[in-house]
């Protein structure tokens, strides 16, 4: 045998085939893989870095409009100058403005914040002199707690629990990689002086006097040391309160020669505040065995939450924290305090990763079985051994590249599995064929190298095509989806590259060692099957049954034009019908709104996932007192208590719960106030429950809605953790306009339209309820004549409403500051409209009733002014319980487009194109669609770009390879054929077409082109060996049928395990049904098209020759 010039594949094979290094390579790679699996941080979902920060500037006493024009607008202008800023949102409240800057997804967090700080500090001069120092707070996803545990007890109250929790939190801070440890839900100790205005009046003491007397008596002052008797001795004034008793016995005035003590005019309490504004409670649900016993519902709760440091492995940190927690529980936490882990993202990530690793193994096993059937166990085994090596290399590369092990990475690996065995299969199959048919006296090593070398270029090309497809994914995707799908775009090409390397390095070496040439001869069926795979150059084998069936079907198509036409029309019809399944909703006569038609496939973004937890976010009208909020929450809790799948829930009244990633970006995490509440519901673990969280939530919605209806203006949202990037709302209308009042009117209109839309739930808007405000206006003239200053009036009012912290009690063994607070309790509440019971002392010491000095006018609280991207905005949002946002938005768009806006001009709508629109209010009011719709459009746009980019590049590469413009098109005809299978596939499975489906199509393109490449390669090879075109086409189809089926089955069985996953199921369905349909048709259509093309080419060259 003459030694041909070896290509890359041949060279690698030659070098490694007998080298000891191969073994070293295998062992090294295996070790690397083990290390990568153990070392790489695990996450449930890839971390999406969205640098964001809030700049808060106070302008005391300024109205919202003033804040807007003096602080917020200039600040917005300055901040929009920053490069890398995506959106700027702001809210101007009374006395305070807040600007939120959201950087583009993927911008470096540190760099962005430094830039921001720099700009904000430099802009200090632009702000009014009395404005406070701008406070920059970064919204950091790393600070989102990964573990929370709740202390609850039927015997201890929230204050006692808090004390225990403090001790526990202290001990957790020292654990490795723990970042923020915080407590939530507890009550803090305070010494409250509950002043009684009537008693004060009776004793002739004013609020101000009482306050001053207490405030100035609480002092500890270290003094300079003195020297006595030759020794330095320290001096210290000690007058600070060391107990509530001290406060009680504080003299505040002398009235009629009689001393007046604090105890005479006030009730002094020590402990948790008697009038809490925010509380948290915990209840066990029916899904927990502890429920049902006495005292398992409605218990006071304190939650300790722990965040991890950036880059740390959530699984490890969570384990360490929980271990410490259990140790503390065993040592110093009282027996009747229960500690319940209410969030464990580490466990969640670990479960998800382990499950997927298991799935990966199952997929590997299934593919292995397929290979054994087709290749024989020895060859199959070699291929199967290469797979872990490829994965090891990929994971190690991920570790080095900073890609964590998460669901997306593992799905990428499962996806890659079907593809990466291919390189190994091709190599081993060719070696096998050479062993079988080559000269038995030829050197085995040389034959192996030759075999590897022979398929080298084609394999490289096919693999390169697949890699290209996935790399375009990384290039084309933008925003949050890019971060989400990035692991796919990195892992798959990496795995493909590794598969080639391993196929050329390990496979020839292994084949050389373990596949016996003579063995084939002894093994009859094996030999025969190998004969069938042999290309015609080495003589034809008798066609097998499969091939015979194929040829019988292919014959008529090849010979009879009419059959060809019927077949062609049928394929086109199928293609159209399949496409129509996706498109029907848009074109059907009943309109785009409403439920999906019987055969339709809805087109969505990312489906929801089966989770172990969901949130109930309650937002009452702003005028709601916390007690009423609590009441609604209790009513919802009563519904939860009947749900068998609910393990436990924790309610948060007057505040949001412990932040999660979703809440952080939805803006629900930072809410506080008497009208907000949240219920975090933990379900029974998903492996032990029949119903998915999606169904549970769907069933709960009407029940909760029934309760909510009794509370006009209340908004209750059941929020499930989205599988992908978090969004403000699924359907979101951003209303821009020149005038706040107009926006309010428009917002109500749009909200109504939302309510009339099919399947919308949890409708929210950003227009707050008007809150009555009492404006206390001092009569300055009268006040001056009475010898009272406005500052004194302010001081008295502060005491009466809300109270004033006068200082801190110096209590032994107290680890947190204990404030001494003077306040007027509710039982002595003063009507703001009537201030005659509040006295201030004038310069002569006489008490003057406040009512005589002020006028009280009713007004309403300044409404916050919201901006987005420098324009006034208001939001209306909704969730969809069962359908996809695309239809709802299009339906709404149809109804809202051109309605008359408050300025008399038609409302302009936008942001439904592939390019994001910027708000513009020059021509009046504008509605831009945001939320999931925007992201859906972005993702579909990016994926379409990716797909077309990939196809274009592949086309160019193929043009270069085949030196023809038409042949690559024939090869690529396989791609649209995939569509025929895809939509019926979704319909059969009952899933939505989603963004992952789109990724699946992109992957599909790479796979099916590879099949047609192999067919065309063989046809051309056959022709080159002198076969007539007619026969060459037939033979190529028949011979390639088996390897193509093998590849197809590998992909199908490899991906099948993904179908059950709600998120990546889409990818699997695209791939499985697309491959199935495409492969089934490709084996007929590609040879046919090639033949037609070749005939015409022949004819044209013939006529061309005739003419010449």
């Amino acid at each position, binding site marked *: 045998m003459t030694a041909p010039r070896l290509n890359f594949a041949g060279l690698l094979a030659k070098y490694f085939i007998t080298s000891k290094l191969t073994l070293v390579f295998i062992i090294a790679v295996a070790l690397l893989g083990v290390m990568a699996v153990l070392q790489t941080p695990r996450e449930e979902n890839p971390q999406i870095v969205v640098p964001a920060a809030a700049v808060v500037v106070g302008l005391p006493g300024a109205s919202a409009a003033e804040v807007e024009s003096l602080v917020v607008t200039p600040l917005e202008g300055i901040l929009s100058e920053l490069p890398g800023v995506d959106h700027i949102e702001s809210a101007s409240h009374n006395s305070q403005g807040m600007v939120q800057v959201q950087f583009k997804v993927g911008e470096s967090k540190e760099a962005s914040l430094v830039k921001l700080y720099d700009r904000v500090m430099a802009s200090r001069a632009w702000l009014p002199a009395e404005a406070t120092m701008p406070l920059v707070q970064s919204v950091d996803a790393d600070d989102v707690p990964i573990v929370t545990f709740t202390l609850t007890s039927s015997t201890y*109250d929230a*204050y006692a629990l808090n004390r225990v929790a403090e001790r526990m939190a202290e001990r957790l801070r020292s654990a490795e990689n723990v970042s923020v440890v915080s407590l939530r839900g507890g009550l803090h100790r305070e010494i409250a002086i509950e002043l009684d205005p*009537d008693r004060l009046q*009776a004793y002739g003491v004013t609020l101000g006097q009482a306050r001053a007397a207490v405030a100035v008596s609480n002092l500890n002052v270290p003094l300079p040391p003195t020297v006595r008797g030759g020794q330095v001795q320290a001096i210290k004034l000690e007058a600070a309160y060391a107990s509530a008793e001290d406060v009680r016995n504080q003299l505040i005035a002398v009235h009629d020669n009689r001393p007046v003590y604090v105890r005479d005019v006030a009730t002094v309490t020590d402990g*948790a505040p008697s009038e*809490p504004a925010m*509380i948290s409670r915990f209840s066990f649900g*029916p899904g927990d065995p502890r429920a*049902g*016993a*006495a*005292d398992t*519902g*409605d*218990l*006071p709760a304190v939650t300790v939450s722990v965040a991890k440091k950036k880059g740390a492995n959530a699984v490890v940190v969570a384990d360490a924290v929980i271990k410490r927690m259990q140790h503390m529980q065993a040592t110093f936490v009282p027996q009747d305090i229960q500690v319940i882990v209410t969030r464990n993202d580490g466990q969640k990530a670990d479960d998800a990763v382990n499950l997927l690793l298991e799935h990966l193994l199952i997929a590997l096993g299934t593919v292995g079985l397929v290979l054994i*059937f*087709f290749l024989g166990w020895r060859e199959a085994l070699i291929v199967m051994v290469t797979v872990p090596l490829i994965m090891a290399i990929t994971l190690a590369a991920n570790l080095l590249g900073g890609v964590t092990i998460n669901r997306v990475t593992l799905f990428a690996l499962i996806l890659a599995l079907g593809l990466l065995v291919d390189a190994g299969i091709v190599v081993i199959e060719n070696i096998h064929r050479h062993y079988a048919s080559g000269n038995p006296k030829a050197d085995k090593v040389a034959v192996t190298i030759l075999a590897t070398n022979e398929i080298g270029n084609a394999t490289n090309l096919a693999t390169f095509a697949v890699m290209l497809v996935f790399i375009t994914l990384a290039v084309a995707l933008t925003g949050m989806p890019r971060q989400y799908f990035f692991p796919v775009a990195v892992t798959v090409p990496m795995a493909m590259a590794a598969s080639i390397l391993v196929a050329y390095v390990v496979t020839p070496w292994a084949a050389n060692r373990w596949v016996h040439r003579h063995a084939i001869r002894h093994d*009859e*069926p094996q030999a*025969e*099957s190998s004969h069938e795979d042999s290309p015609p150059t080495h003589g034809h084998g008798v066609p*097998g*049954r499969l091939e015979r069936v194929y040829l019988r079907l292919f014959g008529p198509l090849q010979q009879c034009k009419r059959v060809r036409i019927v077949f062609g029309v049928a394929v086109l019809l199928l293609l159209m019908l399949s496409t129509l399944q996706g498109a029907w909703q848009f074109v059907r006569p009943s309109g785009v709104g409403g439920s999906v038609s019987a055969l339709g496939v809805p087109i969505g973004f990312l489906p929801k996932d089966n989770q172990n937890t969901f949130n109930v976010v309650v937002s009452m009208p702003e005028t709601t*007192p*916390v*007690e009423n909020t*609590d*009441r609604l929450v209790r009513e919802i809790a*009563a519904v939860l208590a009947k749900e*068998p799948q609910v393990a436990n829930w924790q309610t948060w009244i007057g505040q949001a719960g412990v932040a999660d990633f979703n809440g952080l970006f939805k803006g629900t995490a930072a809410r506080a106030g008497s009208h907000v509440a949240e219920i975090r519901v933990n379900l029974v673990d998903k492996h*032990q*429950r*029949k119903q998915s969280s999606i169904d549970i939530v769907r069933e709960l919605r009407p029940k909760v809605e029934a309760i909510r209806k009794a509370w006009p203006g209340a908004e209750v949202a059941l929020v499930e953790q989205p599988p992908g990037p978090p969004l403000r709302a699924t359907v979101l209308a951003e209303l821009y306009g020149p005038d706040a009042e107009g926006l309010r009117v428009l917002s109500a209109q749009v909200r109504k339209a939302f309510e009339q839309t099919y399947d919308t739930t949890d409708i929210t808007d950003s227009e707050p309820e008007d809150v009555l405000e009492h404006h206390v206006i001092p009569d300055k003239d*009268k006040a001056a004549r*009475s010898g009272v200053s406005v500052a004194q009036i302010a001081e008295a009012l502060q005491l009466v409403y809300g109270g004033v912290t006068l200082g801190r009690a110096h209590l032994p063994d107290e680890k947190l500051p204990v404030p001494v607070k003077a306040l007027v309790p*509710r*039982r002595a*509440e003063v009507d703001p409209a*009537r201030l*005659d*019971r509040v006295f201030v002392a*004038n310069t*002569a010491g*006489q*008490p*003057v*009733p406040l*009512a*005589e000095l002020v006028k009280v006018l009713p007004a309403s609280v300044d409404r916050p002014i919201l901006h987005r991207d420098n324009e006034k905005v208001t939001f209306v949002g909704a969730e969809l319980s069962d359908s996809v946002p695309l239809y709802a938005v299009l339906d709404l768009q149809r109804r809202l487009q051109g309605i008359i806006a408050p300025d008399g001009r038609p409302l302009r709508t936008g942001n439904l194109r592939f390019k994001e629109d910027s708000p513009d209010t020059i021509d009046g009011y504008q509605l831009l669609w945001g939320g999931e719709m925007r992201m859906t459009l972005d993702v579909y746009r990016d994926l379409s770009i990716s797909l077309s980019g990939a196809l274009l590049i592949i086309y160019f590469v193929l043009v270069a390879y085949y030196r023809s413009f038409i042949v690559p098109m024939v090869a690529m005809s396989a791609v649209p054929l995939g569509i025929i299978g895809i939509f019926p*596939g979704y319909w*059969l*499975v009952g899933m939505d077409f989603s963004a992952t489906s789109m990724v699946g199509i992109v992957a599909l393109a790479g796979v099916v082109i590879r099949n047609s490449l192999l067919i065309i390669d063989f046809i051309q090879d056959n022709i080159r060996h002198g076969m007539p075109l007619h026969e060459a086409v037939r033979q190529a189809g028949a011979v390639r049928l088996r390897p193509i*089926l093998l590849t197809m089955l590998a992909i*199908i069985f490899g991906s099948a395990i993904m*179908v*059950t996953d709600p998120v990546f*199921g889409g990818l699997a369905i695209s791939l*499985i*049904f697309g491959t199935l349909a495409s492969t089934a048709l490709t084996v007929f259509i590609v040879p046919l098209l090639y033949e037609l093309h070749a005939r015409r080419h022949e004819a044209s060259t013939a006529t061309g020759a005739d003419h010449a």
Partner: protein
Amino acid sequence: MNRFITHTLSRLRAMSAELEGNAHGTGQGMRSRSVLVLSICACLLAACADHSGSPASASVPVTADVAVVRLMQLPVTSDVTGSIVSDGRINVTTRVLGFIRQLDVREGQPVRKGDLLLRIDASDIDAAIVQAAAGVQVAQEAWQDAQYDVRQNTQLVPVGAIPADLLRKSRLREETTRAALEQARAALAAAQAQRNYVDITSPVDGVVVSVTGRSGEMAAPGAPLLTVESREVLLFKTFVPEHNLAAIKAGDSVSVRVDALGDERFKGRVRGVVPSGDGVSRRNEVDIVLPRDARLLPGMFGRLEILVDEKPVITVPRAALVRRGGLDGVFVLQEGVARFRWLRTGKHLGDALEVSAGLLDGETILARATDVVRDGTPIQVVGSVR
């Protein structure tokens, strides 16, 4: 060879059949699998439910009184504080200068009109009386002598025994001596009158509220020795801010609440608004005549409730209020089950509490909650709903 192919093919078919099955629907496929999981779960759950359900169903209903919450019109008042003062307050002083010989009354001692309060040492007055009496005697003697002279001279003058001029002079002496007698008598009466001021008696029915003099002390006229307060009329004296003055006029009936008597209200009558106000504190004095009541004592702290408005409020009995998990609230009866409701309570209105948020008109609450009642406890109502 053929056998193997057949074998392979059948395997392949089986596989594709399996695949078709899979494809059919993770919908149906999944469903059938979930049926299995479901039944297992159901069994487990049933076990759970039995376990957890038993204590709930076994929990005996607690019997309790209930009350229906009603919206009530509550007067909105503006409270001004003041003190009870007595309208008849008498400072007792002496008219005569002298040592206090007897002073037996003590502070707080009730006295009736005419009761002896104190006695001034009267010895110098007695001496003066004797002296005056002697003066009368002297004057009497002188007048009788002058009368005799006049009688004698009257007889002698017509006979010319003495000159007429002598008669005229004797008549003149008689008149002067008579005047001197009158004077002496008046002096005696004056001296005797002094004697009356020595015993000081109570001018009114009332209470001795302060005693400043002591026995043996020199009592000087004008210096108060003790104070007696009349109980006949008690006033509530208060200072009303200007803006509430319009609501008050003389003769109005108002209610005054006295803290010391457990917030009891007393109906009073406005006697008058003192027209001159305090220019600094912007308040005018208002006097209110209080009804007679033995419990009312001058100096007591009280509040005048000026009715300004009426507002509807929800109240709950104080006994219904419970504290659960650090929150004050009541148990509301809903479908036979007690549900805890957090309340925002306001003013204390006697036995009731104002509720500013958390309850609605017409809801039924447990009138008295015991410790056994928890959220979700079934309740058996005793008695009729109030």
